[in-house]
């Protein structure tokens, strides 16, 4: 699950970092340290409305005002966010939570701690991303299974065959047409609903399965 520390460090060489912080001594110190670490880094202030596409990591000052909000990240473009905080009162803490940051550095900014925060944040972001991918895949699998179950019941009702046989028919169709079983299943369900609605099928079957999905 955790990549080797060497890969994390090497990965930093390719990191493209945007520092959203006023252009003062602390902002400069942060940018300089990120350069030492080997990141490709630039600074910007005030916060831009959107993050440029080439950026993968953002260090951003958390401010007490609601505006400007955290810039939206471009679609399908997951950013690593490290928040910079100078107060720890509940207002700032709430803003920190709202930001969905993966790491935090405190003001006054020191050179120590930036590398740790960066490595941890990028690692967490990667881990979250893998989890999100897994959840999405599981959801798709679950839905596909529900559709196949439903289609099996349709075929059982229409062709008076057993469930095993119906399942095998769907599988054969999928192989022949080079589609997934879920896609075949959806076609069957749609066709059955459409034809049933037109009265073409003399014995419309109950398609709303009441059996819970096995998992």
């Amino acid at each position: 699950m955790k990549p080797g520390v060497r890969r994390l460090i090497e990965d930093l060489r390719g990191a493209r970092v945007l520092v959203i912080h006023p252009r003062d001594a602390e902002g400069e110190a942060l940018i300089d340290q990120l350069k030492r670490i080997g990141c490709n880094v630039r600074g910007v202030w005030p916060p831009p409305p959107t993050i440029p596409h080439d950026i993968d990591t953002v260090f951003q000052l958390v401010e007490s005002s609601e505006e400007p909000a955290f810039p939206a990240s471009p679609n399908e473009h997951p950013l690593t966010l490290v928040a910079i905080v100078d107060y720890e009162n509940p207002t700032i803490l709430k803003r920190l939570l709202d930001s969905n940051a993966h790491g935090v550095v405190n003001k006054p900014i020191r050179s120590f701690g930036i590398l740790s925060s960066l490595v941890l944040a990028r690692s967490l972001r990667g881990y979250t991303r893998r989890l999100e991918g897994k959840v999405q895949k599981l959801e798709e699998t679950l839905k596909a299974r529900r559709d196949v179950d439903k289609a099996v019941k349709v075929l059982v009702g229409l062709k008076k065959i057993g469930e095993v046989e119906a399942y095998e028919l769907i599988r054969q169709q999928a192989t022949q047409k080079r589609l997934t079983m879920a896609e075949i299943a959806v076609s069957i369900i749609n066709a059955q609903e459409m034809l049933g609605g037109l009265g073409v099928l003399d014995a419309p079957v109950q398609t709303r399965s009441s059996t819970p999905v096995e998992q």
Partner: protein
Amino acid sequence: MTKTVPSARQADRDVWRVGVLFSRSGLMAITESEHFFGTALAIEEINRAGGVLGREIEVIAYDPGSAPETYRRMADRLLTEDGASVIFGCSTSAERKAVLPAIERRNGLLWYPSLYEGFEYSPNVMYTGACPNQNSFPLAEYIVRKYGPRVYLIGSDYIYPRESNRIMRDLVESYAGQVAGEQYVAMKAGDAELTRALDTIHMRSPDVVFSTIVGRTAQRFYRLYAEKGFDPARLPIASLTMAEGELREIGPEFCVGHLTAASYFGSLRSESNRRFKSAFAKACSADRPVSMWSAGAYAQVKLFAKALEQAGSLDTQRLVDAALGLSLDAPEGPVQIDADNNHVWLTPRIGRVRRDGEFDVVWEGKGPIKPDPYLSVSPIGGRWLTEEAATA
């Protein structure tokens, strides 16, 4: 940052007051005494030549006895009671880490002359020793190509050996070598523990031993290595720290053939080194050997003096601003303080111990290379040796 060093008191007197923190006793006594002599020699030379901007350098020196906690306490005393904001000191990473909070809180400036494992930058430290891309990198290629692929890693159990070995493992593997074993012994390991370690090494039969054991324990390790019948010509110990002073303690005849990667060896034949050696012989006793420890400590004081001359003040920020980019004809040759990371451009070299306790330089870089403490621009597995050098 607040300035707590009472500079007014210092300005009343016509001196630049600095602190010196090297251990003259304890585990690190040998190497740090050499740091101390190098520092003292440079300051003496500067004062004899009239000081900096007409003012002499005044030294307050303590012996922290190789104990990190004592380093912290004494650094605090130097920075507050003694009013010295500039400190030359520390050798091990544990000592440096102990001093860091004090030096940062009081906004002082630590000049740290030792090689270390990298991955650090403090605006309050000048790192004038080598970082891994200046010693481990060429050493790894050298040992794998010259002695063989199986490298045994052994070190004292603290941060410098562990991180150095992590880097060495990556390097060795990048040259198609393999780690034949990795082991740590106590800082003050006794003969029994070291003998057990040597038995394990014998069992694993590596082609070379990379040792990051430090201090007196390292001296015992080398001695026992010889007594156990290991042949350094065939199976050498490669080190980043073993220098002339410690060889003298062990007995050079027991060490012939061992390797050290460093930017300085006493045997270098440059004009700047001849000057340094003769001054050192005159100031200390003639038979005390010079080494990377004394030469490095000497060079950093000279760099400090140059920076002070430009800054005209011991104020940390002004000193650092003046120091960045400074170059010097040091005993090892030309060196330069990097403008970005407070570390120093040094020339990597590999030395092999000979019978008189000096080193033959068996490989040398073309010139000073950029210090890369975060290994952000140094490729693992880069080529250092030419084909001739690797097969010679």
